Every structure is written in structure tokens, then in C-alpha cells.
């Protein structure tokens, strides 16, 4: 079981919220989307995906609904709630602040 890097672990919530902000998706589709958007840089194991999703659901940021999927089987679709949208805004603002701060430090010319 490959563990996601620390950076991803801290920001997995943000990634999931962002992906679900685009459209409601079921778990497998989310995992495919994650692989697609981040390529090989961010590795999110299937194992840590579901606990993260359930955690977001318990926090009230996403809600789940059973719907027929593209292969005509019932699948659990997750969608952002109003609370989740607010959380996404907060977390992405936070992320921007943090990444800017870090990149400005990293880009300092060395003496």
C-alpha cells in the first residue's frame, strides 16, 4: 500500500472538494480523476480515498446519493454541500497563501 506523500495527505481534502465542485462523482470516478489531473506526481491510493470521502461526509461538507452510473450499476455519488463550498473557498485561499509564501521563500536568490 503506497502512502501518499505528506503534502498530499494534508491537501487531499482540498483536492477532493475541488474535484467534487466541478461535478458530482462516485468513488471510482474520483480516483480516476485524481490520477488524471495529478498524473504521477500525487499518488492517492484507493485505500485512503474512501476514508477521506467518509470523513468529509461526516463533517457535512459533501453529501452522498445513490444513482445509476455510466455502466448502469447503482453507485454512490458524492456532491458538494453549501458548507463544503464554503470550506473549499477557505481551504483554497489558505493553500494559495501558503504556496505563495513557500515559493517566495524557495525562489530567494542564494548568496
Amino acid at each position: 500500500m503506497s502512502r501518499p506523500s505528506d503534502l498530499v495527505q494534508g491537501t487531499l481534502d482540498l483536492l477532493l472538494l475541488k474535484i467534487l465542485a466541478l461535478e458530482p462523482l462516485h468513488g471510482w470516478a474520483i480516483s480516476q480523476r485524481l490520477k488524471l489531473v495529478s498524473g504521477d506526481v500525487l499518488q492517492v491510493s484507493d485505500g485512503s480515498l474512501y476514508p477521506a470521502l467518509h470523513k468529509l461526509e461526516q463533517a457535512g461538507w459533501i453529501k452522498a446519493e445513490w444513482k445509476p452510473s455510466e455502466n448502469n450499476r447503482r453507485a454512490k455519488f458524492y456532491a458538494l454541500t453549501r458548507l463544503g463550498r464554503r470550506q473549499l473557498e477557505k481551504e483554497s485561499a489558505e493553500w494559495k497563501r501558503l504556496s505563495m509564501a513557500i515559493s517566495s521563500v524557495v525562489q530567494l536568490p542564494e548568496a
Partner: protein
Amino acid sequence: MPFERWFHLIPLRLRALFRRAEVDSELDEELRYHVDRQIELNVAQGMTPDAARTAALRAIGGLESRKEELRGQRATMWIEHAVRDLRYGLRILRRSPVFATAAIGVLAMGIGANAAMFALIDSVILRRLPVSRPDQIAEIRIDGYRHDFGIGDGFNSEITHPLWQLIHAHPHPFSGLFAWGSTGLLVGEGADRQVTGGVWVSGDYFPVLGVVPARGRLLNATDDQPGCGAGAAVVSHAFWQRYFGGRDSAIGAVLTILDRRFTVVGVAPPTFTGLEVGRHFDIALPICSVALFGKALEQREYFWLRVMGRLNPQSTVAQAAEQMRALSPGLFEATVPPGYSSESTARYRGYRLTVLPAARGVSRLRANYASALWVLLGLTALVLLITSANLATLMLARAVGREREFTVRVALGASRRRILSQAFLESLIVATIGAVCALPVAVLSSRAMVGLLSTSTNPVDLTVHLDWRVAIFTGAVAVATAILFGLLPAIRASLAHPAVAVSSTRGLTADKHRSLAQRVLLVGQVAVSLVLAVAALFFVRSFQNLIGADTGFTQDRVMAVNLIDLGAGQLPLEQRVAFQSTLTEEIQSVPGVVAASSSTHTPLSGASWWHSFILSIPAGERTGSPWAYVDPGYFSTLQIPLVAGRGITPFDTAASKRVIVVNESFVREHLHGHPPIGTTLRTFAEPGYPELSYEIVGVVRDTTYADLKEGKRSIAFAPLAQDPGLRPWASVLVRTSGSPSMVTDAIKQRVTRLNGGILLGFRELRVQLAEQLVGERMLAWLSGGFGVLALALASFGLYGIVAYLAGGRRNEIGIRLSLGSSRSQIIRLVLRDSVRLVVVGLAIGLPIAVALMRTASALLFGLTATDIGRLAEAVSLLVLAAGLAALIPAWRASRLDPSSALRAE
């Protein structure tokens, strides 16, 4: 925004709780969907179906453990677990009913005993008075007054009436003050008269306490006016039920009390039984009515009241005490009793008032038995400790037996925390059921203990009930017990390793690490058992010392006949003496009576009389001694031998020279080698007892006086005929040839024929002595019982552990036997271990026991905390019991058939 969050969460949680199956199957479906899609993808990318499946499952990290993790994430999971564990625990217990019943039974007894002791302590020591704002109630007392001045009549004798009036009239830091005194009251007429518990109360008693009547009205300031005569009376709820059958017609009914007619004006509520815990009042009368029966209202030397009040909300007890202390010089100066020597009045002037909190009322039970009760609570706690250790050993053994179950559950993915909490919950279930079963045990045994303390002269009215405090205590004890006996086995269970389950072979030699817990428990049990055994032996011996103490006089077949209301109150003093001697002669003439004597003093009755005096030789020193006025038959009735000189004779009359007979202690203490006979002493004046000179004419052997625990002490015996203040009551000591109870009817007949107004009470000296020792008896009985229990439990525990350890070494023993070890070598091998544990336990327990007995040394009579004999007895008792307990399994191990032991592998 919490509301919006809960809007999502509440349905989620409710579903998780109540539609668990649905939620679980959805979880299943969600994960399966993921895996199926992943398999499809893998196949599409060219994997074989099998490899595709394996890869998909590996990617998600195992379907089942993923599910368990996801379930664990649910916030409601702990409730779900608790419910399931509860069911599981109950099922496990049902499957081993013998264990469950034994454990619950043992715990019910152990927890019940603790709850009973606590309930008793709660009602005697801790509970507040059932009045409004009890924490504001405080008592005014004379600082350091020990009934060593003036006269008093028992426990509630702290303040004189003149002093009370003066305190009341001065500015004081109380919003209300009242006085009360307890007394026995004769209620009814003629032969139907009965003694009831009376209380004299000042007008503010009920109003200040804020007591609300159950019927009619309570006494108030208008009832308590000087010269009130026989007026209003209030009865207690219990007396109302008993005497009036709870009828409303009781209000306005006339009660004949001490031959005066009082009118019942009201009934106190059932909750209010007076201010003395352990003694209920029947009838409350206003203090002013005391004037009907004597001069107590004016007497400055008669201490018979308690003064209490409600503090101003802004005053503390300390401030009030300071204020009363400052007022004291004036108050005592103004109430100096006349008729005392100047030394005595100087002492009176030196008294200072103080204020003590009285939220919990007063109680002679508390004063007498508080320390014994706390000691007993400590002992019951120790018994429960051993019981818990015993149960823990049992549970550990069970945990080993269930090793397979635990390892399988670990292998199936249960977390260690789940196993630990589940195993602990099992113990908690047992403890809780035990605690519930303990409640009836507690009620019954606390009542039994009240019965142990109650005597005919000192009846205890105590309704021990289970209030919230007792409930909390019991609950806390149950949880503590569960932790004590359940936590260790639970931890042990959670340490189960899956690998062990696969190969469940026994180790070749005993697994030392595994049995460490058992060893620690055993050492603890031995130590605590020793403490309990020591306590038992000490308290039993102390009681034996008391009950068997040489009193110096004959107790067998001697009884005290107490005669109340001689009707002699009206007789002049000379005729009173004559009347008493007629009475004594009448009793003496009853067939079966060997000797009879009337006196002011019944030995060991608790009552005492003291005279201060100066001896002619050695001159000067003011001293004093316990004193008794006795008639000529006293020494022969009690069979006290005369050592020198003469006894008291019929010729010692009020008119003749005043003489006294003293005992050997008196000679030793006061005469310092001077010849006693012929020495004179001069008493100090007291009201009713003018300064008088007595000549010592005889010496008798030592006896105990009022209290057995004081031992033998100095006593002076003066002729009853020369008693300047002979009272209208008498105590006649009667020695009989057969059982004293055989002659009581005849005595009653003779006396009533002489005077129908006389009320008689009979008490055998043996009974009286036993009644003085009820506290010690309770301590001895209970600690003795606990000691036996502790020995049994410790032996049982030792037996179990030795058997268990020996069982674990079956292979080793088998090999040793087949290699030629002798049976005795095997026994030694098995015992060596337990001997070490017992020795360690004893070494730990002994100093604890000595330290405990040292703190309880006030309860010991005739032995000290380091009594080597008793300590040695306790140790050898424990060694003996432990030896027997260990020998049986050791012997059994040595009878092992080596071939079968080895084949079992």
C-alpha cells in the same frame, strides 16, 4: 455554522445507529463497485482476470479491513460497539453461569458490606439535619467543658438555664437562638405509665429551625412564657402514629405527663425527629413547664440544655465564636453558682463560650462510635480489595482459557482497543449486577448493625436509608471494583497474538512473564489478608480483655433494681432514708434474694459522682475522688472484700460521726504511705452538699467505678444515711441464688404493695456491662468475620494460583519425574515459588497492619499496636492457611503420571 452542519449530520448518525444493516450493505456495495470497475479496467489493460482482481484488491488495501476502518470512522461507532459488546458480554456470562453467579454473589456481598458501612456512616456522621438551610445552624458551647463542674444529666448537658437566658438577652451574631434539653418523660396514668423520649424546647426552637407541622401547630414563643405551667405539647410523627393511631383527634387531646395534664397542639413532620441523630424525641414541651417539676430554671449549677441558633448570613462560625468569647466574662460573672468553694467558682468564672457548626446535629452515637465505624469501613474496603484480587485471578485464568477466542478475533481484524474494551465491559457488567444485588444486602446489614449498637438503655433510633450519596458511593465502588479485577485480565486478553492461536502447545516450563500478574495479585492478597487477620485478632482480644476484665465485684446473678418516683420527694430527708431502708428490707425478704443493698451508685452504669476534698494527712493539697453513698449491705452484696478497718454499719446514721470507707487505689493515690484508718478529709462545699468532715474507717479491695475502660480507680464510699442530698429515686442492687429474672415479679409485687406509685426497672449487671461494650462488640464481631473471610479468600486464591502454575508445568514435572525426581522433590519445586510469594506478602502486610493498628489504638483495650503475641498469631494463622492451600495442588502435581503427562503433548 453549526446548525447547517447538524442538518446533514443528524440523519446520517440516526441512520448509522438504527439502520446499521443498510449502512453496512451500502458500504459493501460502494467498495465492491470500486473494485469491480478497477478489475474491468485492469482486464481492459490486458491482465488476466485473476491478476486483475488481485491487483484491484491490493490497491484498495484489502476489502474487509478497509470496511472495518470505514465503520470505525463513523461517529456513532462507539455506541454501536458498546451495545454489541454488552450483548456479547451477557452471552459470555450466560455461557458460564457458575462463574457468573459466584462472581456476582461475591461482589454483591463485598459491595453490599461497603455500602452498608457507608450508609451507616452517612446517617450517623455525614447527613445534615432535615431542617431548612442546615449549614447555618451552630451551637454555643462552653469551651473545654467536660462535665467537670456542677451537675448534669447526660449527653445533652452543656448550659444552665440562667446562662441560656443571659446569652439570649445579649446581642449575639445569630438571627435566632434556641435552647433544648432531652429528658425521659413518664406519660400516662397509673400502671399504664410509660417512659418516652422528651425534649424541653425554648419558644424559638421550631421557628428558628423552620420546621413545618404535619398537623396542628408547633410550639412558639407564646407557649414558652415564665409561669406557663402545664400547657401545650407537640408530639413527634412516630409517637402520634404509635400513641394516637395517627388520628386527627390527637390535636387537642390531653396527655398526662409526669402527672400533669398537657394539651397536644400539633404533630411534627415525619422527617424531623429532633436534633440528636440516633435518638428520636416523642414529646416536645416548652422549657417554662420545667418549673412544675423542680428548680432547674433557677439552678445555676445544673447543666441540662444545649443552646443552638441560626447564624446571621454574614457571620461565619469563627466570627461568631470570637464574639461569644468576648461576651463570656460578663455572662459567667453574672451567673456564678452559689454554694461552691472559691476554687470552684474561680474555675467557673474562667469558662469561655465558643461556637461550633451544628449542621449535622449532635449525636452520642457519633461521639462514641465514629472512629469504630470508619475503621470498619476501612476493613470492608480491604475485604472488597481481596475479593477483587481473587476475582482478578479467576478472570486471568479465564482469559488464558479464552486465549484462542481472543487471538482469532485479533486475526479477524479486531483492534486491540476493541478487545480490551470488550473484555473490560464484561467485568463492568458483573460489577454492575453485583452492585444492584448489593443494595438489599446493604439495607439488611446496615439495619443489623444498628441493632448491634442498640441497647435497652441506649436505644438507637436510626433509619438508615439509601440516599443519593449512598447510591453514588455504591456506583463508585462498583466501578473501582471492576477496574481492580477486570482491567488486568482485559489488558492480558488484548495482548493475544494471532501466531499463538496457530500452535497452541504448552510451553515446556512455566511462562514466568505470563504469570507475573497472578503473582502480584497473590502477594497483594496475602498482604491485605494479614492486615485483616491482625485487625480481627486485635479487636477480638481487646473485646475479650474488656468483657473478661476483673471488675473487683461479683457480677454474676446481681441485678440493679431502679426505682423511679419514690413519692419520697415530699418526705423530709430523715424519712427518705428510713423509707429506702424499708424498701431494701422488703426486697431482701423476697425468697431467692441472697443480699440487697441500696446505693446512689450502680457500678459500670456510666453515672458518676465526684467530691473534691482536702485530707488531714498529708495536709494541704486539694484533691478529689469518685464517690458513692452506700448502705451497710453494699460490700457484702457485691462481695467486695474488706482489707482493713470496718465497713459501713447500720449505726452510721445522719446523727452519728461522718465516716467513709475507701479502696486501695484511694490509699495509693492520696495517702502516699500514711495509715488510712483515722485520717480525716474535708469536702468542698457544693449546692446541697455543705462542707463536711469524714473519717476513714475502713479500706476495701479495688473495683471499677463508672466506666470499665477506666480500669480500677480510687473510690470513697460514704454511708447512704449520711447523704446530705438524697434524691427521690433509688437503685437497689440485688444478688440472687438463682437467675435474677426469677425474682423480678416477686420484687415488683412487694414494692407496689408498699407504694403503688413506684416504677421499677431491672437490669442485670452482666447485661449492663455487655451494653456498655456494644461498640467494641460490633468491632470485634465484624472484624473477626472479615478476618475469617480474608483467610478463606486468600487461601482460595493461593490454591488457585498454585494449581494453575503447576498445571502450566505439567510437561516439566512429567520429564522430571521420568528422569527420576522423587515426589517430595516435585512438591518442593511447586511450593518453593508460592512460599516466596507468601513471605513477600507477609513482609509487605506486617508494617501496614502495625501502622493501621497504631492509628486505631484508641479502640484497643489492654494491648498495644505492636502486641507481638497477636501479630505472631496472625502471621502463623496465615502461614497455616496458605500452607494448606498450597499443599493440596502441590501434592496433586507430585502424583502426576509421567507417561500420561508427556503423552498429552
